[in-house]
């Protein structure tokens, strides 16, 4: 396997991409002039950051605090009555479905490394510069430009019991495999994950392909001269160089898997059969907008938020450990 196409680009890697600090500010001997400049930088920095900080407070932090408050209330959308931990207790202790919903979320998150690995393979193949590489790149990216609702509707038709996928299976004699993909508990969530992986593939391929293009040609040449090729080239040369891109890709994919599946679930399965394809995000919607239990929905939102926070924290911890290595 050749890696001739790698390193042909000029995009800078994010490694060590910290903003360059003017020498005068770094100098410990800058004296009075340096200190005045530092203050001036700080003043202007504050001015530039303030609008964004205000927006963040108003549009993000305040609603988040409101959601925390409402998660402790019985709120029908208009009137809120403080009920303490009842929403959390109800969600965790009295809802037999919640365990299944959380397991569904874990399954979705557990699938993300495979989504990234698949994208890595595609990006690597594209980086080899095969015939029609540009066309393939565009083709892989097109789903990223579509809304999840459109993707869900299209795949809903393809995967329906009398749809094209089953039609194809029957046409090639695989009748036994044809089934009600979205109406069967064991296949509904895997189908959602499959479609999500397909829809998000372009984004991951773009990221990873960019990473591969940023590898210095001389590194690849040197490796080649040392007799490295094929899988060894990927494992020992390519992967270490695009590690940061893989990490970024993984974080984005996990985040999307937790917060962007709603459109697919809504259009493809409505969370069913039963709750076999319901995630916390969808359960939050059902609780709030179908049941009118906004307080309970806010509690589920907080659980989702904490889960997302823990996953990101663990990812950051592992990244820091990796840096130390």
């Amino acid at each position, binding site marked *: 396997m050749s890696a001739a196409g790698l390193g042909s680009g000029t995009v800078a890697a994010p490694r060590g991409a910290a903003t360059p600090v003017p020498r005068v500010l770094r100098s410990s001997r800058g004296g009075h002039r340096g200190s005045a400049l530092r203050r001036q930088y700080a003043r202007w920095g504050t001015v530039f950051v303030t609008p964004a900080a205000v927006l963040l407070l108003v*549009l*993000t*932090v305040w*609603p*988040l605090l*409101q*959601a925390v408050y*409402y998660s402790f209330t*019985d*709120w*029908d*959308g*208009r*009137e*809120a009555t403080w009920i303490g931990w009842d929403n959390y207790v*109800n969600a965790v202790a*009295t*809802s*037999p479905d919640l365990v299944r919903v959380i397991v569904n979320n874990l399954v979705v998150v557990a699938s993300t490394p495979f989504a990234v690995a698949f994208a890595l393979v595609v990006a690597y193949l594209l980086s080899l510069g095969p015939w029609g590489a540009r066309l393939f790149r565009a083709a892989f990216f097109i789903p990223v430009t579509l809304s999840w609702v459109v993707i869900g509707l299209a795949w*809903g*038709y393809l995967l*329906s*019991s*009398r749809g094209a996928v089953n039609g194809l299976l029957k046409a090639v004699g695989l009748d036994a495999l044809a089934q*009600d993909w*979205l*109406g*069967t*508990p064991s296949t509904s969530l895997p189908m959602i994950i499959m479609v999500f992986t397909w829809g998000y593939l372009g984004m991951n391929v773009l990221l990873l392909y960019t990473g591969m293009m940023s590898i210095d040609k001389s590194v690849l040449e040197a490796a080649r001269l040392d007799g490295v090729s094929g899988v060894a080239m990927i494992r020992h040369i390519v992967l270490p160089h695009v590690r940061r891109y893989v990490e970024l890709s993984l*974080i984005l994919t996990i*985040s999307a898997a*937790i917060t962007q599946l709603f459109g697919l679930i*809504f*259009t*493809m*399965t*409505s969370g*069913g*059969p*039963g709750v076999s394809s319901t995630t916390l*995000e969808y359960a*939050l919607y059902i609780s*709030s*907008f*179908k*049941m*009118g*239990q*906004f307080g309970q*929905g*806010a509690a589920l*939102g*907080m659980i*989702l*938020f904490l889960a*997302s*926070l823990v*996953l*990101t924290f663990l990812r*950051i911890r592992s990244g820091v450990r990796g840096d130390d290595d």
Partner: protein
Amino acid sequence: MKTARLFAPLCAAALLLAGCGSGSSGTKASVTPGEVTTATTGTIKVWAYGSLEDAKHLTSLAEAFKAKYPGIQVELQGQPSDNYYALLQASLSAGQGPDVFAMFPGGYQKQFESSSLDLTGRIPTTDLQAVQAQYFSADGGVDSKVYGVPLTAGMYQMFYNKKLLASVGVTSAPTDWDELSAACDKVVAAGKTCFGYGSETGAGSFAAIYDWSYLASVLPLKDWNGLTTGTQPYDSPDLVDQVTAWAAMHSKGYTNPDVMTWRDVRKEFAAGNVAMIMSGSWDASWASKALGADAAAAPAPFAPTKVKVLIQMPDNGFSIAKDSTSPDIAAAFLQFAVSEEGQKLVSEAGQVPSRAGVAVQQPLNDALLKEAEAQGWEKKPMFDNFIAPNVTDAINKGLNQALAGQISPADALEGLDAATKALPDKNRVDYHLGGGQ
């Protein structure tokens, strides 16, 4: 860098939660009933449940009302039924809701009580009584707070294709499990689907609540009350037997295999390839148009002995938003809708009017009601109107799976008990059905 990374999920979660955090706190508009005359001007926005195509009676009412009050505009907006309550809740919470909105009594109404205007004093008590508006009241009477008025007295019913059944030697609609089995054996042998189930969107499930209302009819109405309050278990032997017999329709091949997701069930019924489907009186005009004289309606034959029950109640109603800026015009519109004149328009549009004494003009519905009267069938209300939304959701999900053979009938019914048990006390409303406590 760490901070920036931490903010990413924070932003995502907060944005996700923002929809829950933007509601206004409890406000009550101060309104004074006023008289609406031909000189009154203004506009009211009316939300219909589902497409306006399916609510022709509403279009007729709006046109007639505008003709009566030339200075008033009635803006009708059809809202998707799949997502109706979500949209309504969101828009009312944001203070951007309609003046008048479609509403159903019981558990549906309860969700929106704090957003709805009390209609007593705005609509004459005689009119409220004539359309049985007590189903929309806080305590079951029209003398207390009434939060809506029913425009139609809908029915859950089975539509069947007389010609298709006759072609296999079945001359009348089946009336119990045995007759249903016998009829379905013949229909299936002829290469047709006996009972069609599916979802037009292909996503999720069909409304098993129609079927359940008949399945649960083996119990007296006072026991329904126990089911809604949690004092009577769902997984009782009688109900397990009923759901088992119902689920056997799938295992015996009487239904289509893909009961959860078949998109074309209505299309195939209209094409004469499906003998029976479950729906309601609102679809009678569609069935008549699709099959002409071959269409007929009957109670679902989901009973061990001859079925003597018809599921009917004043249901499809309208409420006025508490925050409406034109409550007087909105009330005048609803008063017109429940008047004899308005109810005749409802009937002409193919619906069953809620007002007593107004003739039913849709032939299928009329025939079914006359049959019910002649046979002395007991009328029971629609089950979903008296249970909390999460139990309705559990019925629609659990029974679907039972029919598809994915879970046992007992497990499906245990799920309903669990859903009932999980209800907050305030949602465990006692409607005293059948005099039950």
